[in-house]
């Protein structure tokens, strides 16, 4: 892991009226790092993530993502990151192949590149049999694996994953994490939110947001020492309950 910072946030703040959703958060994420972004529902994770991916302007503070400023270069950020959410992943009424072609096109890949990439992706995920099936007919776990691969099509520097494994069966959940490890190993930075605390242990570093602020940020090992807890679940319960 290099020391190069691919995300740098400083005093990043978002207010809705007089409600402070994200309260002056400051942190860095290094190249190739798996960074876990945790917090209770309503703690401000999604709002913070929206600012980092360039679809919501901060009220104050600053941040650079992949070297671009979130306030002034949002379009450049979008080209240099991948994004996958649990709610919206792929088009259910397109086939696996059509989805890959569509997203490849959106990310501006050439036809030749798209063809090449879809062949690799379909082979790696063992999808040959279902390549021409509608995505809507596939199990959730498969969809999430395809969706993750699609978010990496344009070889982004960073990929943002918003609760990628919610409701997925335990075996697929682990296969998904093996894909995350592989991507990180190849130098992609992974920024991930999850409610599974065992997954928090898989991250290189973890931040925990409470009421809009980052209340803890360290490796899982050090967080467990700091909070005298046996697991990340205990760390989370101690912190988020105040």
């Amino acid at each position, binding site marked *: 892991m290099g020391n190069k910072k691919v995300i740098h946030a400083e005093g990043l703040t978002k207010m809705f009226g007089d409600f402070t959703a994200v309260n002056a958060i400051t942190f860095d994420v290094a190249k190739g790092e798996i960074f876990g972004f945790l*917090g*209770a*529902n*309503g*703690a401000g994770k999604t709002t913070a993530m929206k600012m980092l991916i360039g679809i919501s302007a901060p009220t104050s503070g600053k941040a650079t993502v992949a070297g671009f400023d979130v306030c002034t270069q949002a379009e450049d950020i979008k080209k240099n990151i991948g994004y996958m959410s*649990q709610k919206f992943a792929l088009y259910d009424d397109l086939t696996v192949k059509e989805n890959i072609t569509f997203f490849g096109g959106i990310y501006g890949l050439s036809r030749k590149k798209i063809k090449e990439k879809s062949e690799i992706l379909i082979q790696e995920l063992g999808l040959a049999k279902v390549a021409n099936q509608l995505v809507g007919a596939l*199990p*959730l*776990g498969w969809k999430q694996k395809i969706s993750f691969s699609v978010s990496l099509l344009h070889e982004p520097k960073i990929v943002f994953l918003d*609760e990628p494994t*919610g*409701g*997925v*069966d*335990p*075996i*697929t959940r*682990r296969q998904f*994490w*093996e894909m995350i*490890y*592989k991507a*990180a*190993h190849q130098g992609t930075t992974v920024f991930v939110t999850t*409610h*599974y*605390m*065992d997954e928090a*242990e*898989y991250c290189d570093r973890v931040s925990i947001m409470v009421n809009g602020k980052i209340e803890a940020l360290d490796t*899982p*090992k050090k967080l467990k020492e700091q909070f005298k807890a046996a*697991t*990340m*679940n205990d760390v*989370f*319960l101690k912190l*988020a*309950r105040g």
Partner: protein
Amino acid sequence: MSLHISNISKSYKNVKALEGISFAVKEGELFGLIGPDGAGKTTLFRILTTLLFADQGNATVAGFDVVRDYKNIRNSVGYMPGKFSLYQDLTVEENLQFFATIFGTTIEENYDLIKDIYVQIEPFKDRRAGKLSGGMKQKLALCCALIHKPKVLFLDEPTTGVDPVSRKEFWEMLKRLQKKGITILVSTPYMDEAALCDRIALLQDGKILEIDTPNAIVKHYPKPIYNVRANNMYQLITSLNAYEPNHSVYPFGDFVHYTDSRADFNPDALRAYLESNNLSNIVIELTEATIEDTFMELAK
């Protein structure tokens, strides 16, 4: 028996959602249906709450047949579906009043049952349900499902997408309801919640893999499990996957759970193999199976 399910099957076109499901839930029991998305949990809930006909088999809820006595069942059960299904345009109080009226009762009559939960959302009683946070919606939905004092409570994935703190609080609420004599059937994809049930059924692809108490299920795990750790998680997983005698390799927190296919497995041989793959700080120690280990072994 509060719930009696016998050989229930249901298909949608060529997808078998449920195949020959049979089990019983005792009165006052907290019973968990544990399985991932697509296992058939919601289909079973819909059949038991009389919203869907099974293709085969029969079931009784609180002594009533799900087909013949559906009206009695609807008065005797509370159902909280996975999707938020209260009226978004009604306020918290209006929703509760609405459900009480539908069931021919009043909020006052059964207030005891919901008091613990309702006081947490009462400060927002004039807010429209659509404007509530996820955790508050969930509490309101539970109140509405309880307002007619049901004998059996059906909760379909009440904690999916909910953070660990709110999940813990929710399960504490369930335990209190159980003490008041309500039978609870709850589904969840979170294996750690299984341990909080009296008994569980592990469900995958429409079939029951196993039914027992959480403790017994864990004890049935067929092999010794080892916690393995090394300096690099990705290389460790790759190496273990490539290790031919492996039986299963699953990341578990900061360890990998490893089982070997040989009866005479010697951890030192594994250590030597990992060292030859340039891994260091290797830890290999026996550990105990979890519900999740059992689920994965059965689902394999």
